[in-house]
Structures are given as structure tokens and as C-alpha cells.
């Protein structure tokens, strides 16, 4: 990729202390250890991809950073300071914004109301909503991101999946996110729309935001990522920089690596001729 050089430049200029640093973080629900000894660092202007199969602990990981759950072991620091978030509000106030798979947009509410939800602009002694300003800013921010939504009064539920993702990302960036967590933003999208969303992710990175990109699509991850962390059964199975891995390796690692090889042998034994159709193990 032609952008590899710029990745390296950014890595050189970015500050040494990561914005968010997880050290040996674990989370147990009773006797179930959903996450064990996970370390992760998020730096300004970098995209850290977290990959893993269903149940690998990706959701638990982002819920900890997003403030929905507290961790039970290890240490999480934000801007060098140890933190335990007790609500999403605290996480947001520390500059961490999360765009969830299920979007965190209220479907029946208009685009501008969703854009400013939780951060409404008010004016006057009665704290009346400044509707005109909110519509104007929402339109400007969306246009800046290259999203065209002609009618901001439209309920969000009527937008396409890609548009919704973009509204959510644009919103997070506008409200000063330093770290953006994207939970499988491309999982439910078609090829074109995924492309649009990936472009916004790159735009967010270029704006100096540290991005945690959760996905189980290694192709999407490799297109934009600087750093890759593969989770397996709640543990880190792979933690590597872009320079040290190829797409093929990442795909194999993601698909289960040696386990996949074993499975492929097993399948070959079971049904000769029908094996190896889909070595990437793609489900979407």
C-alpha cells in the first residue's frame, strides 16, 4: 500500500505514551473468565485492529474501554492515569467515543437529534434547544466527512447501514473524541458501503484520532490497520505491527491458524474433493 510510508511517519511523530493503555487486563463474570491478561495500546493517529472470532472477548474488551463494564484484574490507563470507568459518560468525558455494532442511534429520531443526543446545544435563559444551530452543524460535519443526507429531519431508521455508521462516526469526531472505538462497523454492510466506512475510519485517523477497530474481517483490518491484535478465547493470540505481518498470515491467524490446518485435514479425510473451498473461514 502506498500509505505504508505515511503510517511509519505518523508512528514516528506520535507521542510515546499511548492515549489508552491496557496492561494484563482481565474480566470475570463469576467463574467465567471472559478476558484474561489482555494488553493493548492505542496511540494518536493510529488504527489498532482487534480481531477475533465470536466469543473471543472482543465485545468484553470494548465494553471495558467504553465504560459499560469494569475490569476485574490488570490495569487500564487513559492519558497515563489509571482509570476504572463506572459509566459510559466517564469514558466519553475522557475522550473515548464508541460506535457500536448496533449503532447507538435511536431509529425513530431525526438525524440532527441523534447527532446531538446527549450533547444538545441550548440557548437562552430557558435552555431551549438551538435547533437551527444543531441542524447547521450536523449538516456541516456530515458534509465534511463526505456524507450527503439531504433531509436532516429524516428518522435515522430510514438511512442505509453505511450512512448510519458514518453519522455515528461523524458525531463521535465532532464531540472531540481522542479515541474512537468501532465495533464491527463493516459487519452488516455490502462491499461498497464497507468501502465508504473504511474511508471514514482513515479520515478519523488522519484527524489525529486513535482508533480501535474491532472486526472479524482480516481484509478490512489489513486495509487500514497499523497494529493488529488477535483475540482467542479471551486471550491475546497475536500482537503485531503492520510491518511484521502479511495479509495471508493475518487471515490464517484470524481463521484459527494451526487449528484450521487440523480442521482442513479432518475435512479432507471426511469428504475427499470438497475441502479447502474457503480457507479464510469467512462467515460474513
Amino acid at each position: 500500500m502506498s500509505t505504508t510510508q505515511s503510517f511509519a511517519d505518523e508512528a514516528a511523530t506520535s507521542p510515546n505514551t499511548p492515549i489508552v493503555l491496557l496492561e494484563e487486563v482481565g474480566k470475570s463474570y463469576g467463574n467465567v473468565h471472559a478476558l484474561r491478561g489482555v494488553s493493548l495500546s492505542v496511540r494518536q493517529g493510529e488504527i489498532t485492529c482487534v480481531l477475533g472470532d465470536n466469543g473471543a472477548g472482543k465485545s468484553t474488551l470494548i465494553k471495558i474501554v467504553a465504560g459499560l463494564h469494569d475490569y476485574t484484574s490488570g490495569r487500564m490507563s487513559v492519558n497515563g492515569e489509571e482509570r476504572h470507568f463506572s459509566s459510559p459518560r466517564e469514558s466519553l468525558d475522557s475522550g473515548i467515543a464508541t460506535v457500536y455494532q448496533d449503532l447507538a442511534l435511536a431509529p425513530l429520531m431525526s438525524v440532527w437529534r441523534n447527532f446531538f443526543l446527549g450533547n444538545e446545544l441550548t440557548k437562552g435563559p430557558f435552555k431551549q434547544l438551538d435547533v437551527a444551530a444543531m441542524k447547521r452543524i450536523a449538516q456541516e460535519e456530515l458534509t465534511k466527512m463526505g456524507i450527503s443526507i439531504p433531509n436532516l429531519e429524516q428518522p435515522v431508521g430510514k438511512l442505509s447501514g453505511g450512512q448510519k455508521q458514518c453519522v455515528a462516526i461523524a458525531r463521535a469526531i465532532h464531540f472531540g473524541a481522542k479515541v474512537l472505538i468501532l465495533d464491527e462497523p463493516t459487519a452488516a454492510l455490502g462491499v461498497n458501503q464497507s468501502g465508504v466506512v473504511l474511508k471514514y475510519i482513515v479520515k478519523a485517523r488522519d484527524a489525529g484520532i486513535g482508533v480501535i477497530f474491532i472486526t472479524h474481517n482480516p481484509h478490512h483490518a489489513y486495509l487500514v490497520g497499523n497494529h493488529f491484535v488477535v483475540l482467542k478465547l479471551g486471550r491475546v493470540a497475536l500482537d503485531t505491527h503492520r510491518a511484521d505481518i502479511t495479509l495471508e498470515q493475518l487471515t490464517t491467524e484470524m481463521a484459527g491458524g494451526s487449528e484450521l490446518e487440523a480442521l482442513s485435514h479432518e475435512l479432507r479425510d471426511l469428504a475427499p474433493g470438497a475441502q479447502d473451498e474457503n480457507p479464510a473461514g469467512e462467515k460474513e
Partner: protein
Amino acid sequence: MASTITSPATADDRVAARSVGARLLSRPEIGSLVGAAVILVFFLIAAPPFRDINNTGTILYGAALIGVMAVPVALLMIGGEFDLSAGVAVTTSGLTAGIFAYQLSLNVWAGILLALVVSVAVGAFNGWLLMRTGLPSFLVTLGTFFILQGVNLAVTRLTSGAVASNSISDMDGFGAAKAVFASEFKLGGITIKIIIVWWILFVAIAAWVLLKTQIGNWIFAVGGDAAAARAVGVPVKKVKIGLFMTVGFFAWFTGMQLLFVQNGVVQSGEGVGKEFLYIIAAVVGGCLLTGGYGSVVGGAVGALIFGMVQLGVVYAGWNADWFKAFLGVMLLLATIVNLVVRSKAEAR
């Protein structure tokens, strides 16, 4: 989508500007307004006394009795919850004020204040229990409904030995309180009960709060998608508990009206079934039962429809027994009209 990235134009020519008509039709209360107009015309033709301007005050009074409570019930429904205890909570409020003031021989206003505290506390309890347990509001408030109903009857029986509270009409402060909650005045020959004025005021304030303030935005959000609202930092629990407390506040107000309009006596069995009338008004007014969508003004129009039908049936000379049947038909028609109008407006 691809073309929209390369040309970040401010306008998209694929979408034509929506006509004023289509925009009007997409308002949640439009179905109820159409329904109200149809019913008005119907009874103007079918019931001669309906045309008498002097009866307008009576019709509005009937509407206001439901309408005041329809305001918080509509807000609560938009916030995604129900309150089945709203009907008997009104009675609880009236009884609390009456019994407390009578038993301790206090100024009426002391009873009024205590009733306010109790009513808001009942609302807060509903909201707190709901948030604490995660049970559906239908179940939680059904429980409160029976509790309040039982307490109303039992406490009244214990204190007065009858099914109604003792009259407080000769006690200090009664006159002033009656003037606030249950007086009336003449306006151009029409007798206007003060609750109608209060009703209009409440609707105006609540509509403003819902559409033009941060709290209003949050109410839509917690009803539309509570998880999404929480994730962007909306205090979902506080908003929902606040909504239940608002229902409590309005139950207090309506309870005071009930107490002072009946010369300081409240029947302990009253209020059962009223909760459904409030819900009907809100639903007819375009509130979605599932939350996230609706209008306070619509709820007021729903209450107006209720008032018109209630008296229209009588004025038309029909047996009043038919009223409930008529109401049920209205509810179904209104919800279907809402559905059709909304889908048509969205298709434009």
C-alpha cells in the same frame, strides 16, 4: 453511495424538497386531528345540543379531566413505559390530602402538600422498582395499581368507617384551594372550569419541553432505544424515573381537582379504569405503544375526542351505555388512521 463521497455537495438532487402537506402529514398528531374534525362534524349533525355554544365548556371540561393526566402518560409512553396505576394514583392523592387534613385537623394546604409528596413518591417508587428489577412497566405498575386500590379502600374504611373520606369543606384553606383547583369563571357567556385553563397550560409547557429542550430529546431517546441513549451518555434511569414522578405530580394535581370539586369528599373506589382512558388518549394522539414516537398535543387532541364522544352520545339522545363501545371503536379507528397516514406521509 460511492458518488456521494467524491462530491461532498451540500445538497443532494436525488431527493426533492418535501411539500408542506407531506411534512404536515408526518406529524404524529395528524391522525388524531383528522379524527377530531370528523367527530366534531358528525356530532354537529347528529346531536343538536352539540351546536349550542354553552355546551362547549362542558365538553372541554370532560376532555380536561382526562387530558391533564394524558399529558404525563403521553410523555411516559414516548419514553417507552406505561403506568397502569395512574388512575388509582389520582384517588390516592385526593384521599391522602382529605384524610390527613381531617384526621389531624390541619389546614387543608398541609394535606395538599403531603398528597404532593406521596404522589410523587409513588411515581418515584414505580420508576425505581422498574429500573432496579428490569421488569416490564406493565407488571410493576399493575402491582402498584392493586396496592394503591387496596390501600385506598382500606385506609378510608379505617379512618372514616365508610367508602368515602370525611368532608374537609369547612376546614381552613378550603376556599383558597378550591379556587386554585376547581373554580370556574365566565368567558363570553361560556362557563369555563379552571382545570381547562390548567390543562391548556400543562399541554403547552409539556409540548415545549418535549420538542424544544434537552430533556425532551432524552425522552424520545430513552423510549426509542434505551441502550443507544445510555451509550451516548443520556442518564436513562433518571429520565425514566423522572417521567414516573411527572405522572405522580399530575396525579396529585388531578386528585386535588377531584377532592375540591366534590366539596372535599373522595370516593375510595374511584379511579379504576381511568388509566386506560389516559392511555387511549395518548395512543389516539399518535403515541407509539412501543415508545420513541408521539406527541403531547396529540394526547390533548385524544382527550378532546374523548370529551366530544362522551357528551356527544348523550346529546344525540342515545343511551350512554353505548359510550364505551363507541370509545373502543374510536381507539381502533384512530390507530389505523395513524398507521395509514404515517406510511403515506413517509412514502411521499
